[in-house]
Each structure stands twice: as structure tokens, then as C-alpha cells.
């Protein structure tokens, strides 16, 4: 599994796409941060985290789209799935590398917290809670991206599918507002954005954490099952 993780990490670190994404994330994130800071004159990152989540909607599928789809497109899956490794280890190795890659990108945003500390007195609890929320959100988004990547041999399709799936999760709250009864309840439960908002208010609600983690796990297990079953067609 560490072999898989190493390979994927290396593959991220030599890929122009990774640096391009990081650059875009910092450019847009920096813009949002500056505008909000100058506009509100408040030492808070709440708006920034709101915008960062939207950026994640784009970045996560781009990070994960090639994980499995590209292996199939290149025929390397034939090596990967004849190695003495169970599918879940392959999935976990790849997923953790994507998580680490995202972590590297997100780590850069700590600069904003330092800037805030310089210009005012930010509420650190709020910022920590927001980071927890952002990481949980990222973890879920990446797992969903893994799932779509395992379903196709086209990285592009995996990316588009991943983005669509994430956007649907993100906007599930809209459905909750128009629907009634059980469907409304389901959509409300799934509404990732609503749960994420609570973190930004400085609240680490364990039920939200459990929600994010269990959905992440479910997506990963499903990915492993898809791969195992594809192999066992």
C-alpha cells in the first residue's frame, strides 16, 4: 500500500496539473480573502472558507479524476490488479495520496490566518473549526471523485461526473426547501453545504463529523467494490 501511495504522490508532484491547480486555488483564494478582508474590515476567515469550499468543488474532481480511470486507459490496471494487493489497499493508497496532495494545497492557506493575526485579533476557535470542516469536506469530495474515477476509463468523464456529483451534494439543500415529507428530509440530511456552514460558525458538531466520515467511507468501499467487481466481470 505504501508503494501505491509513493507512486501516486510522485505522480502528483511531477504533474503540471497539480501545480496549476494549486496556483488557481491561491489566486482565487487570495482574491476572495483580500476582497472580504478589505470590504468587511474584520479579522475573520468565514467568507474565505465559504469560497474555499466552492473552489474544492472544482479541485477535488481534478485531483482524483485520473486515479483509476487513467490506469484503465493506459492498461496499467492489468498490472495493478494482478499484483498481490487486495483492491481496498489500492483504493486506500491512492485515496490517501490524493488527500495528502489536497492537504499540501490547503496548507498554503494558513498564510491568511497569519495575515489576520497581524492585522487584528481573529477568533482562533472559529478558524480551527473551519479548517476541520474544510478537511472533512475535502475528504468526502475526494472519496466521491475516487468513485467516479473507478467507473470509467476516461479521466475527463470521471472529472465531469465527479463535479456533477459534488455539486448535487453541495446543493442538496435546495431540494430540501422545495420538497416535502421524507424526500425533503433525505435532501436535508445530504445537504453538505448546510452542515459545512456550522463548522464556519465555530461549531464542531460530532454528528456532522460522523456524517462526513461515514459518507467518505461509503464512497471508498463502493470504489473498492466497483474495482473488485470490474475485475471479476
Amino acid at each position, binding site marked *: 500500500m505504501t508503494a501505491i501511495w*509513493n507512486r501516486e504522490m510522485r505522480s502528483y508532484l511531477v504533474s503540471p496539473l497539480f501545480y496549476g491547480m494549486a496556483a488557481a486555488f491561491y489566486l482565487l483564494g487570495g482574491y476572495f480573502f483580500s476582497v472580504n478582508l478589505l470590504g468587511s474590515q474584520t479579522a475573520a476567515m468565514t467568507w474565505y472558507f465559504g469560497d474555499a469550499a466552492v473552489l474544492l468543488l472544482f479541485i477535488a474532481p481534478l485531483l482524483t479524476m485520473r486515479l483509476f480511470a487513467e490506469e484503465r486507459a493506459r492498461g496499467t490496471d492489468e498490472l495493478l490488479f494482478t499484483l498481490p494487493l487486495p483492491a481496498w489497499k489500492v483504493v486506500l493508497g491512492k485515496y490517501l495520496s490524493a488527500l495528502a496532495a489536497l492537504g499540501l494545497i490547503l496548507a498554503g492557506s494558513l498564510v491568511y490566518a497569519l495575515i489576520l493575526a497581524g492585522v487584528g485579533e481573529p477568533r482562533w476557535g472559529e478558524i480551527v473549526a473551519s479548517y476541520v470542516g474544510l478537511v472533512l469536506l475535502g475528504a468526502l469530495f475526494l472519496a466521491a471523485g475516487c468513485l467516479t474515477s473507478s467507473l470509467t476509463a476516461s479521466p475527463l468523464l470521471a472529472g465531469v461526473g465527479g463535479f456533477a456529483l459534488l455539486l448535487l451534494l453541495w446543493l442538496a439543500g435546495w431540494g430540501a426547501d422545495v420538497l416535502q415529507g421524507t424526500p425533503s428530509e433525505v435532501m436535508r440530511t445530504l445537504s453538505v453545504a448546510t452542515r459545512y456552514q456550522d463548522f464556519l460558525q465555530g461549531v464542531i458538531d460530532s454528528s456532522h463529523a460522523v456524517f462526513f466520515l461515514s459518507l467518505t467511507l461509503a464512497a471508498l468501499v463502493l470504489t473498492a467494490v466497483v474495482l473488485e467487481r470490474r475485475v471479476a466481470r
Partner: protein
Amino acid sequence: MLAFEQVTKRFGERTAVHELSFTAEAGEILGLLGPNGAGKTTTLRLLTSYLLPTSGRVTVFGYDTATHPLEVRRRIGYLPEEPPLYPEMTVREYMTFVARAKGLPARRCREHVDGVLERVGLADVAGRLLANLSRGYRQRAGIGQALLGDPDLLVLDEPTVGLDPVQVIEIRDLIKELGRERTVIFSSHILPEVQALCTRVIIISRGRVVAQDTPEGLSRRLQGGWRYLIEADGPPDRVEAVLTGIPGVEGAERRAGDTPERFAWLVSSGDRDVRRDLFFALAAAGLPLLRLEPQKLSLEEVFLQLVTDEGTEDRNQHPDTAAEAEAETEGAAEDGGRTDGGTSEEEREEGEQS
């Protein structure tokens, strides 16, 4: 050591492999021979547990690929049809990755990888990116990764495809050498290669085993008595009448001769040698004998005979696919002649479908 028991593999409507049964013993070099689209790649994928059978059982070293895939995978090295390379890695990085993924401890990796690089002739390009390697080197890298971890069974899908003649010889020598220490099963549609390397040949066509024997045994078994190629001067119809009139002659098949006006005949006569009778009969009829050559059935002809029989049999049910199989057979026979490097696109497509 490995066994296919009534293995059938279907992809939707298409049956790629039909009730395939064969076994291999330790120490054999087994050649899987068949025209493009015969099911060779699918067979090897079933063997490596990359694919699982729709029905039937594949066991390797006593382990069922369906229930104990990891035990099987631990003991095999597999070169798929297309070398499974990551273009952004260097040769050494790639080899190290595979060695580690196969569970080799880090401290033994370097030495082991070096040994394999040396063995497949990649030591000089160890620091180059796989993306920048030529087809021959890529193929070697593919074979190299299969060798990592010293597997007891090597499964090589078309190992010499895309190589230049010198490399083909090198790889064949390597396979021969490897075959001394372990079991090798490889697929090919190149007859001389199979003839030169294998201790046993399995010919498959349209997903079924049509014959299995040693290369010599196959040739002998299908020889079917005396055959001569003859040429005689005179009107073809008369020559043919004389030939078929000779006692013992079972058939005279007209072939194209050296020039358009001339013809040759392939005469078969079972276990009776009729050369003398041929000479006198033609002389008596005033038709001078120009050529008389005893024919030996090559593995190529055996192959053609086997796979075309199969094709004709199926023609009534699937006119299109049977014609296709026949066309492919011709291609394979040409390849068998001498153009070893030539692999066709259909072969790759077959791989991708499966």
C-alpha cells in the same frame, strides 16, 4: 500446477473462451497459439485472475483464482499484451515500485531491481523516463516487471510483438533461459517462435482448444501420409486425369505453377509411396514430369488446417465472424512466414474488448 477446467468466459453476448480445459506442469514452456481474436489474451487474463471465469475453474498452484486471487498473484509474473508502464516514471522508479508492491522488503529491492535490469538489458537506460523509451525497451521493461519477485510462473502475452529481429532473438533466448528455472506460458501467433521455444503447444481457435501436443507431435499427428508437389508438361486436364488414375493416389489438388500457363499439383497418397508409379504413368501418357517434391506438413499448415476447419464448422451460425476468423488466419500465416515483428491492430482490439 495450473489447470483450466471447463472454463467459459462471456462478455455480454460474446463468448471469448468456450469450455477451455488444459493443464501445465512445472518446468514447461507452454505456447498458446492461435489467430487474432482466438481468445489467447482472455485465457491469460483468466490465468492471472485479472478476469474471473463465467463458469468453470482456473487453478494455479492449487489455488482457485476466484477464491484465492492473492495467493495466485503472489506466484506469477505477468506481462500483459500492452506493457503496463507509467510514462512519468523512470525505468528504475518503475521497477522499484513494482518490486515494493509485490511485497519485497526495501533493503532487498535495489539489488533485486539491478539484477533484473541487467537481465533484460535495461541497465543502461535505468534513469530514463519510460515515456521516452522505444518500443523494444518498453517491452523489455514489461518483461522485467514480470520477473520481479522471482515468480514461479511467468505469463507472457505476445512477448516479442513490436521488437526488431535482433531483440526478438534476445527475448526468445531469455524466455528459453527462464524456462529452465520456472514455468513459462506465453501466447503468440508466430509459428516459428512457438516451434522454437515451446515444450508444448496449445492451439486455440475461437475460444476452444483445437489441439495440444509437442510441436513435433502435432506435425507428425497431422501429417497424414505422403504428399508430393509435382509438375508435368501438358494440358492440365490430361495431367489431372492421369494423376487421379494412378492406384493409391487419393487426391490431386491443382496449384499455381511457376508461370501462369503452368500448373502444379499437390498429390496425396496415404501411406503408399507412389513416386515410381507417378513417373511411369506420366511418361506413358507423354506428359514429361518436370518436378517431384515430397512435402512435409509444417506446423504452419497444421495450424491453418486446424483453425480453418474450426472456422468452416461455425460458418453457418455466424457468417460474419467466421469470415473474419478466416481473414485473420491468413494474416497469421503470413506472419508465421518471416515477418515476426508484424502485429495487427485487431490483436490489440481483441485485448481491449476483453
